[in-house]
């Protein structure tokens, strides 16, 4: 696991109060905390963490942990694996 992945996981774990295993399979609205407001907080935190600015469609399409890995790659953030 590289540093970026560690940071990415940590954001999910703190924001949605889930463990690593659960975080990795998490989808939008799986937990109460990941609603539209939680989503905005997630995006803002990830943008700050990785110093990027995402486009509207990427923010909307960011529907799961796994999908997020793909999207972040587009912004040059390598999460390994």
């Amino acid at each position, binding site marked *: 696991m590289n540093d970026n992945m560690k940071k990415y996981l940590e954001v999910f774990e703190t924001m949605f109060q889930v463990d690593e295993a659960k975080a990795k399979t998490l989808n939008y609205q799986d937990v*109460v*905390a990941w609603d*539209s*407001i*939680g*989503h*905005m907080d997630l995006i803002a935190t990830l943008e700050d963490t990785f110093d990027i600015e995402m486009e*509207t469609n990427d923010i*909307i*399409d960011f529907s799961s942990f796994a999908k997020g890995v793909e999207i972040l790659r587009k912004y040059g953030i390598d999460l390994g694996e």
Partner: protein
Amino acid sequence: MFHWNGRGDRPALLTEKDVWSYERLTEEADGIAAHVGRRCLVFLLTKNVPEAIAGYVGFLSHGIVPVMVDAALDAELLAELVVRYRPSFIWTPQARKAEFVGAEGAFSLGDYVLLDRRETAPFPLAEELALLMTTSGSTGSPKLVRQSYANLEANTASIIEYLHITPEERAITNLPLHYVYGLSILNTYLTAGASLVVTEKSFFSREFWRLMREQRVTSLGGVPYTYAMLKRLRFFQMDLPALRTLTQAGGKLDPELHAAFAEDCAQKGRRFFVMYGAAEATARMGYLPAELACAKVGSMGKAIPGGRFELLDDAGKIVTEAGRIGELVYYGDNVTMGYATSGKDLSRGDERQGRYVTGDLAQFDADGIYTIVGRKKRFLKIFGKRTNLEEVEHILRRWLAETGSSAEVACAGVDDHLYVFVTDGAMAGKVVPYLSSKLGLHFSAFAAKFIPALPKSASGKTLYRELEQYYDV
């Protein structure tokens, strides 16, 4: 309200798959009302679907009085409201039908069903009473605002006038109908003969933005939190050529956001209206004319057509000097009749006589433009929803008692950040999940802090000011 003629097949409601003309809306509305058949109280469980809107239009145009309730309201809180107000009928999505034990299905339309509660002891209704709105969407507060037909007509006409809503305009239902701001959009666009795109989709779906573009939505409204989200969603870069008007209400917009949206709108030739209102004034009391949006950042403007503001100082005298702070008082035909806290209040007449003391502290500048600077009453806006701190304390006290805790609790905070102070360390950790689920509001709005004892005055009153030192924001 809603006695329109000669609009025929002009579109009233547009959904993803369907168009409801004014003629069809009228027919469906009349059909629902006919199954009620008399003036009585109805609970309308709101979702942003044409069936809910048809129910509302039918009830209002046939003298049936709806209580607008969020269809997502907690079951226990909804049951308490039913006991307290004894509605004769419920117009509800099928999914919540089972909660109304003993009620019979009288009629259905789409996903909505009309339930007859066979109420044998309904409360009498005052003649001018048109509609009841909750003051707080999520605490399930039993306190309702009593709005008259004259209130609705006055406020609707005034809003249409200052926003210049023409039949060519098109709004979208991104705000709920149990919320006065959302409902005022419905009232004004339908009365003006314009159309509404009806959707339950949120900003976080491609479908919403596809609808905005394909249906050429001309007007978008939002609460402060909506604007924070829009900015993060890169709204400034979106291509929405039909969009001409943005409106904001539901609490004071952060001045930075106000400036950013005012400037972006000015560049794109759009109008941006910052507005001010309350359920107690039907919906709207003030607005900042779009041409002043850039020059008067942080201000909410002046009274709407037909209304008037006044500021009162601590001694109750009228403030005449610019820059001095006083409590904002509003006068107008849209000032509602008063509150109801139980069914027996529904027969009461007009208790406000066109004057509403807002509880907001404000000042005006040399141009007569008003700015809200604070609040006298103990409530917060959480994501645009008014949340009464005393009601939250009440909910928490009951919960603490049920769990066998004798802890004391106090709520305080600023908009979008509610702090709960509790004198039981073990319970402090459970407060946030409980409140978040009970009120249906995202947990990030709440923080719970353990405090050995609440700060109290000599007379035993909680000193909320002294709790401010514990805020993190």
